[in-house]
């Protein structure tokens, strides 16, 4: 019980954010209207993805210094789950964009950046398949993972800020400021972010443990 209290927390927070997200009052804004509720689902996906990619790069660095297969397995499973969260982030974002911006894929730097970052992590998985020898695969893919991480940061956080973007917080648009997020929204948004991050970590640990048993046999 003591070891897995955070799994209950994760499930509780996500349940709370779903119920609260659909039922609690939200501010009425011109274009967004009720779609503002997507904030509780779209953005936490990206937070979870970033967290998983960070975990992955940390374990890749650990692998290079320790050479333990465990670290490599955790790194690859984090990327696997991170890509799934990225897919959900893109899907929720496209649904949202279709309603508010008029088309599912507007030419927005943040959208393109996240698509390219996904390509990079898919390339990481392809690189793993290209290498047969276990040790070598772990090492070379860890190196590529660390190499790709700063590029991902540039793509998602630096380039969109340089150009005009439809996303808040980019191209001179304000980030989540007091204007569009009131107290009730924050009360749902932050638990949602935390909940989805924990869910991501949970899925990763499950996959990692499964993989570890597979590897030990």
């Amino acid at each position, binding site marked *: 019980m003591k070891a897995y209290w955070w799994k209950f927390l994760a499930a509780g927070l996500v349940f709370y954010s779903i119920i609260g997200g659909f039922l609690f009052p939200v501010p009425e804004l011109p274009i967004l209207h009720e779609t503002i509720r997507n904030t509780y689902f779209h953005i936490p996906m990206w937070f979870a993805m970033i967290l998983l990619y960070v975990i992955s790069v940390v374990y890749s660095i650990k692998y*290079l210094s320790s050479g333990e297969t465990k670290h490599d397995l955790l790194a690859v499973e984090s990327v696997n789950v991170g890509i799934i969260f990225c897919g959900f982030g893109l899907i929720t974002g496209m649904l949202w964009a279709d309603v508010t911006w008029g088309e599912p894929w507007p030419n927005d730097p943040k959208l393109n*950046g996240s698509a*390219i*970052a996904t*390509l*990079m992590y898919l*390339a990481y998985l*392809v*690189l793993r398949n*290209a*290498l047969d020898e276990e040790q*070598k695969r772990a*090492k*070379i893919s*860890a*190196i*590529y993972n*660390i*190499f*790709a991480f*700063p*590029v991902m940061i*540039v*793509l998602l956080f*630096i*380039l969109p800020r*340089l*150009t005009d973007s439809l996303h808040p917080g980019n191209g001179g648009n304000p980030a989540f400021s007091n204007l569009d997020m009131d107290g009730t929204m924050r009360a749902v948004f932050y638990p949602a972010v935390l909940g989805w991050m924990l869910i991501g970590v949970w899925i990763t640990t499950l996959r990692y443990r499964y993989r570890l048993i597979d590897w030990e046999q």
Partner: protein
Amino acid sequence: MRARRIQESSVNVLLRPLSLFLLVLRPLCYVRKRVSLSDMNFVRQVYLLLRKEITLEWRSKYALNGVLLYVISTVFVCYQAFKSVHPVIWNALFWIILLFTSINAISKSFTQESKARQLYYYTLVSAQAIILSKIIYNVLLMLLLATVAFFAYSTIFRNEIGDPPLYFITILLGSISFGTALTMVSGISAKANNSGTLMAILSFPVLIPVIIVLIKLSKNAMDGLERSVSYDEIGVLLAINLIVLTVSLLLFPYIWRD
């Protein structure tokens, strides 16, 4: 050898009162001595390796001529296919030509030499010296190729450029960025044996942010905008290069040690 040992021990006997003090200082001296020595060696190692790369290239001229021909024929194919194009497409096309040229030119930078010879280098020099010399060599190669490509492209394919010096600076920055980013990727893909496809898959995502900024910067130059507008992009390019260079220097020893 024997005489030296005797000398050493006699020195120890003579300096016994100081030995404790020396013992405390010893790690410090060791570190200082090592750093200064390897620093001196390092620059020389890089220089020698770079000279080796250039000599090897100059001797065969196979890769150089091949890639040069590749650039010119690609330019010509594009010219025949398009005849005349909108400035935006002209600019984008030039960067696409350069992208493919650079991947072709740099992908063989680690596969050219045999495994045995690389093992021999491993015993002689530090891994950082190798990657740094390769990066410098590839940047030089890219500078040459990009310059040739630009002159061929702009003479065959006439187009107005508002601010030629800035456009040229963009090309220089572009070749530096391609050189640094692709050297590391070619090192990774060389370890995975099937270099061709893997090189493209691994390098495209890494190069796309660079290309986005480069196309923007060169578009500014074509429109002849005020120079100060472009400082942001130049800064980002330099920052990306610095990050890629640092990460390459940090990570290459792990690829090398096999």
